Each structure stands twice: as C-alpha cells, then as structure tokens.
C-alpha cells in the first residue's frame, strides 16, 4: 500500500499530464484539479506510516544502491511534500480562473504545472544524486516555461536569464555528481556519505555542488535572476516559483550538506554560507524597500527570506534545524499567498505600481486582508508560522551565544516590517495621490479565496508546531549535526 501511495505522489500528476494532452478540453479542468487534490490524500496515510514506523524506503525496480535508485521518505521530506501539496491546491484553484484549462494560456499552463508537481515530489522522495539532477532539470525547465506563458517580453527575458543560469548551475552540479561517483562508485546520498573520503576531489565536488545549488536557490549574490523572474511571472506562477521552486534546491542543499557531507567538519565553510545568508537578508530587504512595484517587493522579499534558511549552516543545531524547516514551510505558505493576492490586484487594476494602489481596502478587501496576514507571517510577528520560525532561530542563535546572528535576525525582521508596512500603508492610506485606475474588473471570488486560504494557513502554522517538529526530530542526519 505504501509503495502505491509513494508512486501516486509522482505518477498521479505525471499521468494526469499525459491524459490532459489527450483528452478533449471540457474534461481538463476537473482532471487537473482532481490530480492536485489527490496529493494531500496520498500524503495522509503516508504521514501516519512515518509517524508509526519512521522512515519509509522504497527501492525502485527492486535494485538497491549502489546500483539502483531508492526513494526515502523521512520527516523532512514529508514536510516538504506537505508544503507542496498544501500550496498546490489553492494555487490550482486560482489557476482555474487565471489560466482556464480550455484556453490557449491554460493549455500551456496545466500540463507544465502537473509536470512540475511530479518533478518536485520526485525530488523530495529521491535520495539519489543523479536522480536529483534529473528531477531538478524537470523543475527548472517547467518553471522557466511557466514563467514565459503569456509572452510578456520582460517575463520572457527573465525566463531566459533564469534558464541560462539554471543550466550553468545544473552543469556544475552534474560535474560534481560525476566526480563523486568516480570516487565512491555510488550515487545514493546515504551510501556516498559513508564512502566518501574527505580529500581534495570530494571537497571540490562539494564546492561545485553547493555553488550550483546556491545559484538555483538564488542565494545572495547569485540571486540576480530571481527578482525579475518572480516579479514578472504571470499570477499563480510567481506563487509557485517563490513558494515551491526555490525551496527545492535549498532542500537539496540541506540534504547534501548534512546527509552526504554530514561528518566533515567545515566550520569556516558553514560560516561562509551563513554570511551569504546575512547578505541575502540585508540586501534583499533593502532592495525591497525601494522597489516601485508590488510584485518586485515580494520578489526581493523572497531573496531576503531565503537568507534565514542559510543560517542553519553556521548554527547547525536541532533548534536551527527546526527553525530552517519551519521557515521553509511558513515562507512557502505566506509567499504563495502574497503572490496570489498581488496577482488579483494586478488583474483588477491592471498595474501593480505601488503609487497606483489606493483604497484597496474598500475595493479588494479580501485580497488585501490576505496580503496583510501573509505579511504578518513574513515579518515574523505573532501569531504565525513565520514567528515560530524566527523564535526558533533566535533560540538557536542564543544557545550558541551567536550574538551576531541574533542581531542579524532582529535587524532582518525589522527591515521586513519596514518594506511590508510601506506596501500596506500605500495600499490603504494614501493621502494626496488619489489614483483613479484606468480599468477595473473584480477578481473571481475563487481567486481571492485561494489567496486568503493560503494566508490563513500561514497564520495557522503558528499553532501546529508539535507534529511538524516531531517529524523533524525523527529525521535528523545520520552523522548528527555539527556546528
């Protein structure tokens, strides 16, 4: 039964893509949405199984490592899968109206979206370095393609930049995989972790891998592609890219660092990664503060928020692990909500320039409410998932006496408050410049509800820590965590 459910996570969306391409247009919408709804249904029994028996492994085609590929479902992977499923449902609900399955753009969107879901799920399940490469390519190509739907020139150029850097990053990663395979004769992360000797070759491979993944995750200063891509993508695609796609490579980075290179002691490298995170927090926040467009603010906010996850590497304790996972989860929910709300605003008034956003509290109360709730979580104000993440991170920093990181986190959250309150203030209280929108159409109510649901979930994440943290506790790296 378990194997069927695991297969379902990948092959339901994949199979649905194939069916969507073959079926007549009337049936498409329902089919796609049903396929997305099936994901949380698959995850529920799997969660119970992981709770009861711990990690689940499945050797594909009955070949075990080093030859075969193994799927491993532990707590961390489960959390990421849940994030994917939970974000996917409202985003799909939104996409049903913004990309109607029968129309030209929808025909482009839905198969790619389902393929992307299949790729993301396959990546979270996979414990094989090369299989991770293939899934990562699936995700990158599908993500870039979705970004270009609609043919906006800015979006197309951003897509190209994203694609070129993404392919370069993939090559670096692939080269590293080749080197590691040469040394260990294995590709399974756990097995490689056991066999890898810490010589120059392995160190270089690790550097190549990390560099590639940092580019894919848009960690400062390799973030250059992200703001334009996330800021110009069509509505739900921004939510998908910011909520899910960047998390994927960050997750891989965590896996490789702690699971594959878990018993190397690399405090200097860890500090360097943390400093990149610090750069991301400061630069992303300051850049968000001066952006003229709502979606660009949110995009730069993603650059900043991902920086918090990087603090896991220098802090490297159980608390930091909790914090980073929670940050991935809470940020995914809140950021998807923000981008959906921004998409609705853009749809309604035809622009997302901040100075044009007046009186939204009366025109688009639900969307503005969703935006504000999500902002609460991003700023790390209680009660919200973002707050718990920040609390855990501060606690982790305190326990190690890492006052520098502690101050950084505080400053970062103040900066995030600065740029988000700026947005909300402009949308509600706008004294002199009463902007009369050139066009107005109210967004479909399901689109607004989708944004609101995600925002409420981001807040609700502030009350459901026990099961989530429990899952993480059960899936700590085999070599332990070292600072």
């Amino acid at each position, binding site marked *: 039964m378990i194997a069927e459910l695991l297969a379902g996570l990948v092959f339901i969306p994949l199979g649905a893509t194939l069916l969507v391409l073959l079926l007549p247009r009337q049936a498409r919408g329902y089919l796609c949405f049903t396929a997305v709804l099936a994901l949380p249904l698959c995850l529920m029994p799997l969660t119970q199984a992981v709770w009861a028996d711990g990690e689940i492994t499945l050797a594909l085609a009955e070949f075990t490592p080093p030859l075969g590929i193994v799927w491993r479902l532990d707590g961390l992977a489960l959390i990421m899968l849940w994030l994917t499923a939970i974000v996917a449902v409202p985003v799909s609900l939104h996409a049903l109206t913004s990309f109607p399955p029968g129309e030209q753009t929808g025909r482009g969107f839905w198969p790619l979206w389902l393929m992307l879901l299949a790729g993301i799920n396959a990546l979270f399940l996979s414990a094989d370095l090369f299989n991770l490469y293939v899934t990562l390519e699936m995700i990158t190509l599908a993500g870039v393609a979705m970004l270009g739907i609609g043919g906006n020139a800015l979006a197309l150029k951003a897509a190209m930049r994203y694609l070129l850097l993404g392919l370069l990053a993939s090559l670096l990663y692939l080269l590293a995989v080749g080197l590691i395979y040469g040394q260990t004769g294995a590709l399974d992360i756990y097995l490689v972790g056991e066999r890898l000797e810490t010589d120059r070759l392995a160190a270089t491979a690790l550097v190549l891998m990390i560099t590639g993944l940092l580019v894919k995750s848009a960690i400062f200063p390799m973030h250059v592609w992200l703001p334009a891509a996330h800021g110009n993508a069509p509505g739900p695609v921004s939510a998908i890219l910011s909520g899910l796609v960047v998390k994927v490579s960050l997750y891989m980075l965590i896996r490789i660092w702690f699971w594959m290179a878990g018993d190397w002691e690399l405090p200097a490298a860890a500090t360097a990664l943390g400093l990149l995170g610090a750069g991301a927090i400061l630069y992303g926040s300051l850049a968000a503060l001066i952006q003229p467009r709502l979606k660009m603010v949110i995009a730069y906010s993603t650059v900043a928020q991902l920086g918090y996850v990087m603090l896991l590497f220098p802090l490297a304790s159980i608390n930091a692990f909790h914090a980073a996972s929670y940050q991935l989860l809470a940020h995914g929910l809140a950021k998807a909500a923000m981008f959906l709300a921004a998409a609705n605003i853009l749809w309604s008034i035809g622009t997302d320039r901040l100075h044009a956003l007046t009186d939204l509290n009366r025109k688009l109360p639900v969307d503005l409410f969703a935006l504000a709730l999500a902002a609460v979580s991003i700023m790390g*104000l209680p*009660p919200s998932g973002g707050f718990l993440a920040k609390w855990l991170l501060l606690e982790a920093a305190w326990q190690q006496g890492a006052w520098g990181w502690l101050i950084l986190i505080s400053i970062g959250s103040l900066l995030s*408050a600065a740029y988000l*309150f700026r947005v909300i203030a402009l949308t509600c*209280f706008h*004294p002199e410049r009463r902007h009369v929108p050139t066009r107005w159409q109210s967004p479909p109510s399901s689109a607004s509800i989708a944004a609101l649901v995600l925002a409420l979930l981001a807040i609700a994440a502030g009350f459901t*820590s026990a099961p989530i943290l429990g899952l993480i506790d059960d899936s700590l790296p085999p070599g332990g965590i070292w600072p």
Partner: protein
Amino acid sequence: MTTEWLPLAMVLVSLIAGVIIFLLGEQRQLARTLLNLGAALVKLALVAFLSMLVVTDRAPEFRLALLPGLDLVLRADALSLLFTTLSAVLWLITTVYAIAYLERSENRARFFGFFSICVASTMGIAMAGNLFTFFIFYELLTLATWPLVAHSGSRAAILGARTYLRYTLGGSAVFLVGLIWLYGLAGSRDFIAGGQLDEIGIAQHLDLQIIFVMLVIGMGVKAALVPLHSWLPKAMVAPAPVSALLHAVAVVKAGAFGLVRLVEDVYGPELVAELGMNHLLAVAAAVTIIYGSVMALRQTDIKRRLAFSTVSQVSYIALGIAVGGVMATTGGMVHLVHQGLMKITLFFCAGIFATVLGVKCIDQLDGLGRRMPWTTLSFTIAGLGMIGLPPMAGFVSKYYLGAGAIAVGAWWVIPVLIASTLLNAAYFLPLIKRMWMHPEPGEWPHPVNLSRMETGGLVIPTVMTAIISVLTGLFAAHPLSPLSWVMGIVTEYFP
C-alpha cells in the same frame, strides 16, 4: 462545568466581533452598532463571571502549546481582572462615543474592526499567563493600533503612524531578544506573584540585569518612558476615541501593565531590588514624570498637552512599583485604573470640542463652559483629578505613592511628586479658568450642527467616565473599589 475556555473567550469575543465587522462592510451600520455593543456587553458579563470565579478561588486557565515547552497561557487572576474590568467598562463607553463621533466619516468598517481587535489584544495582554503570551498579544496590539492611528489618511496621520511603528517594532525587537535570553536562562515560567527567578545563581545576575533593561525598553516604548516617548504626541493625529483608547486603556496602559507584571510576577520585587534595577526604573520614571509635565506646559494644542500629560502620569505607575513597599506599589497600580478613567474623560472632551466647535488650541477654549456645560464640567473634574485634588481619584494615587515612598525611606520621591503636582496644576488650571471665566468669543472656529443622538452619544459617555472617576476617589475605602482590589493584590507580593 469547565471554565478553561473563559479566558480564551474573553479574547475571542472581540476578535471575532472585529472580523465580522470587516466582513459586514461599510454599509451595514445598524448590524455593526449592535455587534459592537453586544460584544462589549457580553464581555462585561464574562468579566463579572470571571471575577466571581476568582473570588471563590477557581480561577480558570487556558493553555495551548505553541512550541514544545512554550505555552500560550491565558488565565484570570486578580491583577488581570483589574485590567480587564477597566478595559471592558471603558470599551463599552468608548464604543458608544466612537459610534457617535464617527457618524459622518468614511472607512468605519475598518475603524471598528481594528478597534475590536485592539481591545481583543488588550484582553490578551491582561489575561496573559506568562511573558511569552504577553509578548504575542503585545505585538498584536501594535498591529491593530497602527491602522487606527493612520485612520484619517492625512499625511500627518501616516507620518504619525510610521513613527509609532518604528518605535514599537524597534522596542519589540529588543523585547524579543530579551525574552529569548530569559527563556534560555530560566525556561518558560508562568507569572507567579513574587517572581519566578529566585533559584538563578548570582553568576547570572549580570545577564538578568541586561535582560531586565531590554524588557523594560520593550515595554517602556509603549509606556512612553523618556526617551522612548516621542511617538505618543505624534500619534495624536488619530481620531479622538482612538487617542482615548490609546492613552487610557490599550497601548500606553499595556506597557505600564507589562512593567507591573515584569517587576512583580517575573522578577519579583525582592530580586529587582537585589539587582539594583528598582533604582534604574525609579529614576527613569521620575525623569519621565517631570519631563512630561514640563513639555505639556509648553504645548498649545489641547490634544498634545494631554498627550504629554499622559507621558507624565503613566510613569506614576512605574514609579510606584519601582519604589516598592505595600503602599507605594498600591499607589502605582491603582493609578492604572484612576489615570485611565480621568484621561479617557479628558480625551472625550477634547474630541467633543474639536468636532462640535473646531476648538483645538488652548486659546480657543474661552467661554466654553457656557456653550457646553456638561462637557466642560467633565473636563474640569478630570483635570482636577489629574492634579490630585482630594477627594478625586488622582489624589488617592498620589497619596499612596507619597506615603509609600516615605514608608520605605525613599524621600526623594516627595519633591518629584510635589513638582509634578505643581506642574499639573500649571497646565490644567489655566484651561479650566479659560473655559469658565473668559467670555465667549463671537464665533467658533468650525461649528457643526449635531443631531440629538450624536450629542447624546458623545456627551453621555464623557459624563459617565467623569462620574466614575469621582466615585472611585470618593469611595476608595469601599471593599469593591479599585483601591481595595489593588490592596488585595499587593499584599500577596509583600506578605
């Protein structure tokens, strides 16, 4: 019958009311009014019921684990009931006033929605059973108050709101770091009368001192301790009911209440004295008292004068708990109630002056007594109370403060009190004199014709709070008075 949910219900009543008000939209005025008043009445009933439980020693407690070892605790004890009662009563009165005050303005749904959430967070602050819970609602309060300050949407309002945010968020960042530090040292502890940190060794006393300062900074921002006060006068651009709420019940009081919790229930007066932190707090409070009064004297705008008066008066609370001893602590804590009653009256009056006649500056007050006798009378009563004239409520507070200071040998408090009283008189008496003695001007700045409903809605709450403030002073010895209540609480701290 289980009563655990009662503290939660106290918070949720206003929170849900707020959300429903948002959803009702701008036009459903009657439904909104009924909901507002209904929720306020329900809350009063809950407070009454809770008081009964607390008196009979069956105080309920609601507990929810947010993180392992980190609980959200809401519970009713004597101190929290003091604050909730004050908030609940004043909320009801302010709601009546606000409905009348905002009769003709726009964005009322937003206003009343955040107004309710603001009260909900005040309830949460009052009922918080540990510092973590306190912090959560403290932040929620910041969030809910910000749109109220910016409500009018004018440039000044937005700037005022921005200043408010900068101060409060900066303060809460410091608060959060202090909180993390404290929890790292001592773990999560519930509030206990007399403190919870006794067993922490002498080696950690420096840590405790730094943490104390950080937490005081966090709370001092809202309590408007000098030099963290300057957001308060700028926030005066908010509508009058908001100012009233801000100064009397919600924000400033939340900061002062937090200081009380910090000194009495987290560190405990003994430890605070041992760490030498009481002197620090007392000096900060004394400086604030004098500075606020002097600044108030220099203001020509009525609301700004009242704002600086708040800066000064709220610090009596901090001064009381810092000086310590049964009497002084009682004086400080009872001022929580007394100052609230008097200050809300004053702001109601200022709001009436501004809306009905357009009077905003002190030199426009001439002859108001004849035009609006009831409002002017209320203003006079509250103003005299602030000065500390017997038998007003303010006198009771000041008397206990002074006597308490002498009892513990803190003689230096007396000159501070005297100076402050003189300054109070100097900035209130000229106003009162102008209103009653000076002749009416030929023309008021912006006279408005109000309907009977509106006039009643504005004046009746004002008169009521004025009367209550007199009664609390007159019947201070009655067993149900705030003073007796506070005495009961304080005797637990100083057995």
